[in-house]
């Protein structure tokens, strides 16, 4: 490929890293680690997401305003998850017992 058609290094490295993380997360899923399985899976997903956002979506090079907009959705999602789960975690009868008497 000519110079202008060569894929940029940062993109190639990111792609390889993403595929490697994919392989890792699938492999680890089969290891019996209890609740750590979920934590690790979500952490790896977050890592992959960060790579996509920072490198592919070029958030690394953006100004604070763009970063704020990019983060706002996730931050608000966090609020929703946190407050709603607060209800469910403190409810005495969730999940409902469907088979009363059985």
């Amino acid at each position, binding site marked *: 490929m000519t110079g*202008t*058609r060569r894929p940029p290094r940062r993109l190639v490295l990111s792609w390889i890293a*993403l595929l490697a993380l*994919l392989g890792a997360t699938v492999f680890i899923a089969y290891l*019996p680690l209890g609740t750590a399985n979920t934590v690790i899976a979500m952490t790896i997903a977050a890592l992959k997401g960060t790579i996509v956002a920072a490198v592919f979506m070029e958030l690394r090079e953006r100004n604070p305003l763009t970063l704020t*907009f990019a983060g706002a959705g996730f931050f*608000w*999602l966090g609020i929703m998850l946190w407050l709603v*789960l607060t209800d469910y975690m403190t409810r005495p009868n969730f999940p409902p017992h469907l088979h009363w008497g059985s």
Partner: protein
Amino acid sequence: MPEARPARQFVDLRQQHDVARLGMWVFIATEVLFFGGLILAYCVYRSGYPAEFAEAARHTKIVIGTANTAILLTSSFLVAWAVEAARLRESRFAALLLWTAALLGVVFLSLKGAEYAMEYHERLLPGLDFSFASPQAHAVHLFFSFYIVATGLHAVHVAVGIAVLVAVGIRAHQRAYLEAYHSPITVAGLYWHFVDLVWIFLFALIYLPGRSG
């Protein structure tokens, strides 16, 4: 043919590009909350039925799921590459990259369709003759409700993305984009990367739980 002048409400092309990008990020924030509502439902029910959700997740097709993830990640790589190519005035090469990414998107949807067909035959799809032999079938039903709505909505977004990539690719092929003006590729790219991002999380929530059980 290239649009060298900004629209009347903008001072220059740089401002127009900046504004277009900002607008796409605001749109992405709305999509985060759109899918987020589904994620909330998943979290609530998984916290209530952890064992059943793990059991249900074991019935998903991890080979297809993993392949699809790799396909989307690669297509994202190609789209990011296309943006760089456009910046270096390789407009036609960028078109090629965008179309290849779109093709990968089509492959993704085909695999998804095959996956749905298999699950339909296994009677795992809610509303479509669902049947699961277990006293906790209702929780498995909830899992697959989330599964089909989330991946279905995601597939719709992929389809839209494919159309956008093809259209932008056509314009790129017509050398409509310069180093100074290629914001449609950037903005379309942001959308496509976001679709990839959603899938990364859906994959972790749908295909991975319960594998070690």
